[in-house]
């Protein structure tokens, strides 16, 4: 099997809990207990109240597409053979203005629209890295959740 060519995240102090959770196939986000709000991407202090003692909480992975682009340009190593692919901002259902940037897969790019319900899944791209990606949700079955 060919080695994985695409860019990989380099976790740091702030982001480590996110990537560790992804390895476990869970979606956890930084959370400020003071203003009871999620913060993403994670920050050294809560940008709303300057709190430094921040927590992490698990979220459902359910959301909808806020906006997106269908990339045709071959500009990123490892993605050359995947064009066109979809990059999107996913609005999560836990809170207003809580979005993740990711790929939307398992669907035709041309079938995607703003507002499309999606759910997270976990892609073990290498033995030590898991990416959080999204796929259209089958709303008729009313189910969702992680993995």
């Amino acid at each position, binding site marked *: 099997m060919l080695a994985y060519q695409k860019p990989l*995240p380099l976790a740091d102090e702030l982001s480590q809990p996110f990537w560790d959770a992804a390895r476990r196939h869970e979606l956890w986000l930084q959370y400020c207990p003071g203003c009871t709000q999620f913060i*993403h991407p994670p920050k050294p202090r809560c940008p709303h109240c300057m709190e430094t003692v921040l927590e992490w909480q698990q979220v459902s992975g359910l959301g909808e597409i806020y906006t*997106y682009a269908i990339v045709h340009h071959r500009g*990123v190593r490892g993605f050359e053979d995947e064009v066109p692919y979809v*990059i999107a901002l996913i609005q999560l259902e836990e809170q207003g203005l809580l979005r993740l*940037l990711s790929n939307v897969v398992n669907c035709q790019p041309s079938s995607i629209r703003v507002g499309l319900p999606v759910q997270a899944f976990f892609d073990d791209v290498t033995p030590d890295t898991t*990416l959080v990606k999204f796929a259209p949700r089958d709303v008729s079955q009313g189910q969702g959740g992680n993995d």
Partner: protein
Amino acid sequence: MANPLSDKAAIVGVGYAPERFSRHSGQSIVQYTIESCLRAVEEAGLQVQDIDGLVSMQWADAVSPSDLASFLGLKNVGYYSPSGTIAPGLVAGAAEAVASGLCEVALVYRSMSAAFGVTPSSKEQRIGGKGQWYYPYGLHNDIYYNAFWMTRYMQTYGVGEDKMGTIAVANREHAHRNPHAVFTGAPLTIEDYLSSRYIAAPMHLFDADMPVDAGVALVVTTAERARNLRHPPVYVHNWASALAGNSDLENWPDYTFAASKYCAERLWDRSGLKAQDMDFAQLYDGFSVLFLNWLEDMGFCERGEGADFVADGHTRLAGKVPMNTAGGALSEGRTHAWGHLAESVYQLRGQAGPRQIEGAELGVITGAGMNTGTSALVLRR
């Protein structure tokens, strides 16, 4: 609050090099930076040794003020720009510097090379910092994510690609009347636009500005000194900047507008002016959606009506408010708004030739936008 420095400084010289922007000028960026600066000084009727202020945008492709001072043999520079802001804000900074006596004659310059912008993918596979949230998903530059604004805008207001494409088409029409433009003589129809390849759909090739070898320099001095120089002074009338304080793509509140909204509010509030007072506008168009954001954020038309405003011809030379009269970054070539500034000077002097807007007295020039910060400037004759 009224601006106490309004009209205390003026733009008195303009220089371009190469004379026509080019994909392959065969010159180094240092060569045409020096050339454009010398032409601006000469055009103003000044001497190189009069220069005691150097202002430029210190991002990516750039010739620094300290290097330029050394190339031009300047020994008396009392003001030079810090990095960070963009074209209109840098002219404002130069105006503030001459008005306060930090320097008397400032060069405000920018050069870029066509090679810049062909951003290679990172050599490192592990990407840290903000990039860790983007690169692993195949998002590595601003061309891709500018399409986020297009998508959200188009689907919110029901605007099709046939309307979005008229921004690029209108700019190209104006470029034909500008001898400096890289695309003079290369027509662009809406059919050409629609059949062009996507970079990141819905963004087409022609929605992104054209990388060129280009240097543009302006000379700014005091209003008093300006009155005794070669050309009619173009006064630095009012300006504003705004940092939106929200630089995460994830947290931008609403992708139907950009940082331009906050800057426009400050500019109009501060100056007592409004969009409808402008005889022309040179709106930043590094990507066509940024032009659309400015058009609406400044109040030239209602939200959701920007694409129709352009399609209906209101931004053409004979329209309600002529815009990007030299072709803009999309069709003159990428100068990070220095071309917009230079064109405004020609318009206000009455020297824009076949592009001249009759009786132009007041115009607005804007910088980039997106989700960071930006600046805008009003010039007057």
